[in-house]
């Protein structure tokens, strides 16, 4: 990833800043600049997601690309946020802990590192939301 692209996406990566259509109330994460439902009648504003959600489905990755190899086996899930948007994300827990419907919350983690001398990409992952 280029430095410029990472920098441009910091608000959504760090703080889950998406958008909301004030016409229909739908929330979009990652952010959309046009509401696909209301189109020209839509009114898009910035919206910070709560970071709470639940696991819609998941997969256990035992074979990973080089930058994620040290984490394997790890849980990759589609998380449905409270606001309705769905994100593909790592859920940090043991593979035998995850289940469909598991409540999760966002945490701040390293997403990947560009070798030993490049940029460190920080962002959001999820952990089980247990009391």
């Amino acid at each position: 990833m280029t430095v410029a692209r990472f920098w441009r996406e910091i608000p959504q990566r760090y703080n889950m800043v998406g958008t909301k259509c004030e016409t229909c109330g739908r929330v979009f994460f990652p952010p959309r600049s046009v509401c696909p439902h209301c189109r020209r009648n839509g009114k898009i504003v910035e919206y910070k997601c709560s970071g709470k959600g639940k696991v819609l489905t998941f997969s256990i990755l035992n074979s990973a690309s080089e930058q994620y190899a040290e984490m394997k086996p790890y849980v990759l899930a589609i998380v449905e946020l409270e606001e309705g948007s769905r994100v593909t994300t790592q859920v940090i827990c043991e593979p035998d802990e995850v289940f469909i419907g598991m409540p999760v919350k966002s945490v701040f983690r390293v997403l990947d590192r560009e070798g030993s001398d490049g940029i460190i990409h920080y962002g959001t992952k999820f952990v089980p939301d247990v009391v």
Partner: protein
Amino acid sequence: MVGIITYGAYIPRYRIKIEEIARVWGANAAEITGGLGVIEKAVPDYDENTATFAVEATRSALARRSVDPTEIKAVYVGSESHPYAVKPTAVTVGEAIGATPVMTAADYEFACKAGTAGIQTAMGLVSSGMMKYAVAIGADTAQGAPGDALEYTAAAGGAAYVIGNDDPIAVINHTCSFTSDTPDFWRREGEDYPRHGGRFSGDPGYFKHVTGAAKMMLADMGTKPSDYDYAVFHQPNATFPQKGAAMLGFTPEQIKTGLIVPRLGNTYSGAVPLGLAAILDAAKPGDRIFVTSYGSGAGSDAFDITVTDAILNKIDRSKGPSVESTLAKAKYLDYAVYARHKGKIKV
């Protein structure tokens, strides 16, 4: 009065037992555990570092009390394991808590006392009226070379303090410091692991500076150790703070709550901030807390703190994890997996 507006702590979930490290290096586990008074230490996950600890601890602080992040005009992160040699950790924290761009920021380094140095800077900025809130963080993923004495205690974690004048949960009555050029521990540029002067780090390092700052505080305030409900000292192991406390006249009961090193290890810049967080988790209005940090190199910062009614009615401590609750949730690693976590295996 300047004081702590809110606070937050972060400790990663992984641990390694000291006896497991001793097993690998053929050392006498009972002797080491007994000598250090440490039974296990916290280990970071692969995707955690000082910046992620700092962000999580600060977010926990902000979850406990409603503070407008745009009123935070300074962020200082004290650590000796900043992820970049050049590029501040503090800006990542500022961005992740929504305090940027109208703020100042810098990273501090003073071995294990950079976090308390940040609190002093924040006190100055707030007391002078330059800003409403400043954040000071102490966090580390401490390094210890494989097989070195430091490896038995070098741990991971951090705590964050929002400093301000507005209804603090704890007033900081006074701070003072004791500092000298004492080469008891160091890491040169480009080196992976620090070196130390062995036993030299005791008397001319830790004890001289801790007792120097602590005695100065007692003299400045006209107090005696029995005037305090709690005391917390830098804890590179459990032996040093217990001995230092006894030298000064503090009782084992006074230091018990803040002495978290036996189950946490030495979190370097995070050590005293986390010990103080453990005390604030338990404190009630009127409690008086004596704090003395220590950073090799060397120096100590002392603080005299009084807990206020605001700890009951201005902050919801249950909104952030307590130090005790995070210490209780431990997942144990063997040495091989621990070595992977710490990046000690180069492939």
